[in-house]
C-alpha cells in the first residue's frame, strides 16, 4: 500500500542526493521532502515531468523567527498516482529570495503572490508581485509573520 510513496522518496533521494535534505513517508498518501532552495526549480520540474505530480494544492509560508528562517511548503497532488507531496524549502529571514515555480506549475501564481504579500518572501521570476488581499495603502508590514502582533483587547 505504501509502495508508491516509498518509490517517490527513493527516486528523489537517488536523483538529487545532495540537495534533498530529508525525504520521508509521513503516512499513507503523504510524502514530505525537504530540499535546498538552490535546486528547487529542478526538483519541482523533476517531480512534475518524471513523477507525475501535476496538480498544485497549496503554497504556504511558515515563519520561524527563532531559527531566523521562513519555511515555504509546496503541496502538490498527483492525479494519476493519488499521492500528495509536501515540498519544503527554507529561506533565510534577512534575505527572503526564492525562485518562483511558476514555470513549473502555473497554478502557483496566486499562491506565491499571497505568500509574498503576507510574509514578504520575494519570488524571483514571478510576473506580478503586487498588492492582492490587503488594502492598496497597507503599510503595517507583513501580517502573517510572527512578529506582527494582533491586538489583544477589543477596541
Amino acid at each position, binding site marked *: 500500500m505504501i509502495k508508491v510513496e516509498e518509490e517517490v522518496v527513493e527516486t528523489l533521494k537517488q536523483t538529487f542526493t545532495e540537495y534533498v535534505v530529508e525525504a520521508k513517508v509521513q503516512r*499513507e498518501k503523504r510524502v514530505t521532502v525537504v530540499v535546498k532552495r538552490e535546486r528547487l526549480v529542478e526538483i519541482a520540474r523533476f517531480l512534475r515531468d518524471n513523477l507525475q505530480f501535476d496538480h498544485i494544492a497549496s503554497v504556504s509560508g511558515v515563519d520561524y523567527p527563532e531559527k531566523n528562517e521562513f519555511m515555504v511548503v509546496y*503541496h502538490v497532488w498527483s492525479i494519476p498516482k*493519488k499521492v500528495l507531496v*509536501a515540498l519544503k524549502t527554507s529561506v533565510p529571514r534577512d534575505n527572503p529570495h526564492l525562485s518562483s515555480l511558476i514555470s513549473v506549475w502555473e497554478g502557483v501564481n496566486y499562491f506565491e503572490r499571497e505568500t509574498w504579500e503576507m510574509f514578504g518572501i520575494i519570488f524571483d521570476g514571478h510576473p506580478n508581485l503586487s498588492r492582492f488581499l490587503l488594502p492598496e495603502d497597507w503599510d503595517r508590514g507583513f*501580517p502573517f509573520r510572527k512578529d506582527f502582533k494582533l491586538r489583544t483587547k477589543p477596541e
Partner: protein
Amino acid sequence: MSIMRVRWGPQHPVSGQWAFWLDVDGDIVVNMEPDIGYTHRGIEKVAENRTYIQNVPVVERTSVFDAGNIVFGYVQAVEELMGIEIPERAKYIRTIVGEMSRIVSHLYGLGLLAIAVGFETMLMWFINDRELFLDLFEMLTGARITYSFFIPGGVLHDLPQGFYDEAMRRLDYFERRLKDYWKMFFLNRTFITRTRGVGVLKREDAIRLGVVGPNLRASGVEADVRKDEPYAAYDQIDFIIPTEKEGDAYARGGVRFHELEQSVSIIRQALKKIPDGKIRVKVPITPTPPKGEAYSRVETARGEIGYYIISDGSNRPYRVKISAPSFRNLLAMPFLSRNVPMADIPTIYLSLDLIPLDVDR
C-alpha cells in the same frame, strides 16, 4: 480601436464581495484582472491566536455557504494531529451533514448560475428548495447555515427523534423537484444557447491551472477526494463521480446537478446504514496536540479544500493554512475571460462557482 477599463464591482448586482478590472473593446473583454481582498479577515492569522476548539467557528466563516464541509477538513486535520479515531456513528453523521451541506451549496451555486443568464425564476426555485435542507439543519444542529457542528472528536449532537422520517420525506420531494429542474433549466433552449461553448476549460488547462472540484470534473478529470482518499464513511457508501467532457459552463452546471442526485443517494444510504454507538470520543476542552503537522483534504462543494496545520505542542496552532477551493479556481477566471463578450463574464464567473469569501479568507 480603443480599450476602455471598466470596474466591475464590488457594488454590482452579481459581483459579490470583489471586483474585476475589465479591459473592454466594444463589447469584447480583452483582459480581466481580479481585484480581491474585500473580505480578507485574516482567518489564518486569527486562527493562530485561538485554541483548537475556538477555531471551529473561525474557519467555518471561510465559506458559510458550505459550512459543513469547510469545518470537516479542519476537524480532520486536528484529529490527525492528535491521533484520534472517531466513532463510526459520528462518521456517518458527518457524511450526512457534509452531503446536505453540499446540496445546499450546489443549489445556491446553480441559482447564481441561473441569475447570471438572467433567469430569476430558477434562482427562486433553487433557493426555495434550499430551505428544505436548511430546515433539516435547524432540526439537527439548531442553526440554519453556521452550525459549527463538527468538533475534534466527533459531532455535537446525535440525530434527533424523527429526523429519519423527515429527511426521507424531504429527499423524496426533492428528487421529484430535481426532475422538474432538469426539464425547466437544463433543457431550456435559451439556457443551452447561453452556456454551451462558453468558457471552455480544456483538460490540460484545468490541470495546469490547478482547478479543483466540479470545474475539474466538468473538464473530464475524474478527481474527487471522496474516492481518492475516502474519509468519514465514504468508503462504505456506493456512489459515482459525475464527469463531463466539454468543460464549458453548461458542463459545469451539469456536473453540479448530477452531484445533487448523487448526494441524495448518499444521504439515503447513510441514513439506512447508520450504526448505533457513541457520537464522539472524549477530547479535552483545550486540546494540546503533540508537535507535528497534518495536511487534510476534503471535497467541499466547490472542490477540494486543504488544511495544513502545524502544531508546536501548545494549545494554539502554530500555523493554519487554508487552501480554499475558490482561491484555486480563481486562476481560471482571467484565463477564461479573454476575448469573450461582456455578457459571458457573469456566466463564466458564476459557472466556476467562485465565492469571494472563500478566496479572501
